[in-house]
């Protein structure tokens, strides 16, 4: 006589459902998702609600405070601060995502190659160590100074500087991802399912793309979120030092830099872009924290 199996409802739960269930318990991460989504939506949809041209100069209305026409006031040339914060946010977020993507691709490629092919491990990791020993902020400033004019001539003032900043942030922030991915790949490589895949004649490239990378996805995703925060901070720092985006193409960091000179007259010009940077980075860091907990199988019990 077969033993009675208790009649529990067995709903199918995928890995991502599990991750979401754990992630939902992390209050900070949930608030982070909310705040980040609000900022992204506000920055992209805001101009439809508050349709003032950020570059429109209204010299009659300089350095104004809060009013119905200008909810966050105006700057010394009469430009609307709210519209500028929206416009700056679009660029800052675009730089953040693009630079994160570049550094993620580089870091994952270097990490996977180093972890999977033993011959490449030594040289690639020495190369990573070398990059980690570079003085990054000074070098970023130097590279931007050297190539700003060349790229501006090649792609125009806006696209040129965008490419340059995304490129320099990307190639100077991939090292942590590479190290983490390498460690993960080294561990996965020794598992049985890789041996099984190899035994049925799977080619190297397919082993990496079908079996190793999907399993190394969790650390890659965590470093992606942290990469966005890092890229936004770096871009703001460069712009704040006057070596980022030009003033007619402002980002949050550039708005801070320009506002710093008028801090006694219109402190709001510093307050809002700064708050935007801080909230974005804070929310992204909380999301990263929550993701790390949710993706760690040791913490995600049952």
């Amino acid at each position, binding site marked *: 006589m077969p033993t009675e199996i208790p009649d529990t409802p067995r709903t199918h739960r995928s890995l991502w459902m599990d991750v979401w269930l754990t992630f939902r318990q992390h209050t900070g991460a949930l608030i982070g998702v909310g705040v980040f989504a609000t900022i992204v939506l506000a920055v992209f949809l805001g101009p439809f609600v508050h349709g003032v041209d950020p570059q429109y100069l209204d010299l009659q209305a300089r350095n104004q405070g809060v009013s119905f026409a200008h909810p966050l006031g105006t700057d010394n040339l009469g430009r609307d601060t709210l519209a500028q914060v929206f416009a700056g946010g679009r660029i800052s977020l675009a730089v953040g995502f693009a630079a994160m993507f570049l550094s993620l691709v580089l870091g994952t490629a270097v990490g996977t190659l180093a972890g999977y092919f033993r011959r490449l491990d030594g040289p690639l990791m020495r190369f990573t160590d070398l990059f980690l*020993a570079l003085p990054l*902020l000074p070098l970023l400033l130097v590279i931007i100074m050297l190539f700003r004019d060349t790229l501006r001539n090649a792609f125009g003032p806006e696209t040129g500087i965008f490419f340059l900043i995304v490129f320099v942030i990307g190639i100077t922030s991939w090292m942590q991802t590479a190290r983490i991915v390498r460690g993960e790949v080294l561990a996965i490589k020794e598992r049985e399912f890789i041996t099984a895949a190899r035994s049925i004649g799977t080619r190297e490239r397919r082993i990496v793309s079908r079996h190793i990378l999907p399993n190394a996805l969790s650390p890659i995703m965590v470093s992606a979120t942290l990469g966005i925060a890092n890229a936004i901070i770096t871009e703001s720092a460069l712009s704040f030092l006057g070596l980022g985006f030009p003033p007619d193409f402002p980002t949050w960091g550039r708005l801070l830099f320009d506002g710093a000179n008028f801090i006694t007259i219109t402190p709001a010009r510093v307050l809002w872009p700064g708050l935007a940077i801080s909230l974005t980075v804070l929310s992204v860091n909380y999301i990263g924290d929550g993701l790390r907990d949710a993706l760690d199988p040791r913490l995600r019990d049952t």
Partner: protein
Amino acid sequence: MIRFITRRLMFAVPTLIAISFAIFALLDLAPNDPTGQLPLTIPPEVRAQIRDSLGLDQPFHVRYAKWMEQFFVNEPLNLLEEAFDIEIGASSERPRIRSWATRSPVVDIIAERMPQTLWVVGMSYVFGILIAVPIGVISAYRQYSWFDQIGTFISMVGFSVPTFFTGLLAIILFSVMLQWLPSIYDTTHEVTDLSSFWVQVKQMLMPVMVLALYNAAQLSRFMRSAMLDNLNLDYVRTARSKGLRERAVLLIHVLRNSMIPVVTMIALGVPTIFSGAIITEQIFRVNGLGQLLIVAIQGADIPLVQTLTFLFAVLIVLFNLIADVLYGILDPRIRYD
């Protein structure tokens, strides 16, 4: 131990050479011409002569070798001479790295700016550690208490909010609204008596605290997790069961073991806060090394930028080495020689 240190040194030297080459080659690509800032009336042959006098007519490898010689041989010799008031060889004929903008030796300019940076950066790091260690210890000991929750939140905010925003906020609050503290750092101010000392304290307060809070935010998280790693280990239970007072268990047994990774982290962080000082100096108008670098970059003063950037690289490699050696000394298990 000696073998461990020499092995580390053998890694550090090639790294530094590779970095110096990378920096030199990168700056050599510069389209900037040192005569570009001069009046247009200067005839081309004079321009060529100026370029020759700066040594720009020579091929890349010759200039690189000469720069290496100046940086690694001549300048250290000069420093030795100044320090001990002696003369080594024909010191006046030794070529030095000179700034294009001021024509004075780069090392002299850097030495002039060094004290301001060291004071602000050094003090902020010391304060950062003094704030971070107790917070980390208490949050770990009372894990998930309200102190821990608030501490976690504040440190998350602390390292998410960039210093160029906290600095400006501090200026709005303490300089513009309350008018307690000056927003510009006056380097010419000399401390002679108590009141001038107080002025110095007031002008250092904001830059130091802004950097200190940023450093403390990161360190306190690290301190907390290092303490948590140790608190549940067997030796802690042994110490308690021996009847040691909780204070002694925590501060003598657990803290000392938890400090091992924290001390290395502190050593590793020193170069980072130097580059963080680039931003802080810009906010509070401290004319230190960071501000010097920004001015040199904007003025395309290549020798000064080269030397300063390489100095930052030397700092990173040096403190990595120090951190490695410290780790080896403090934790005998790590010494894999």
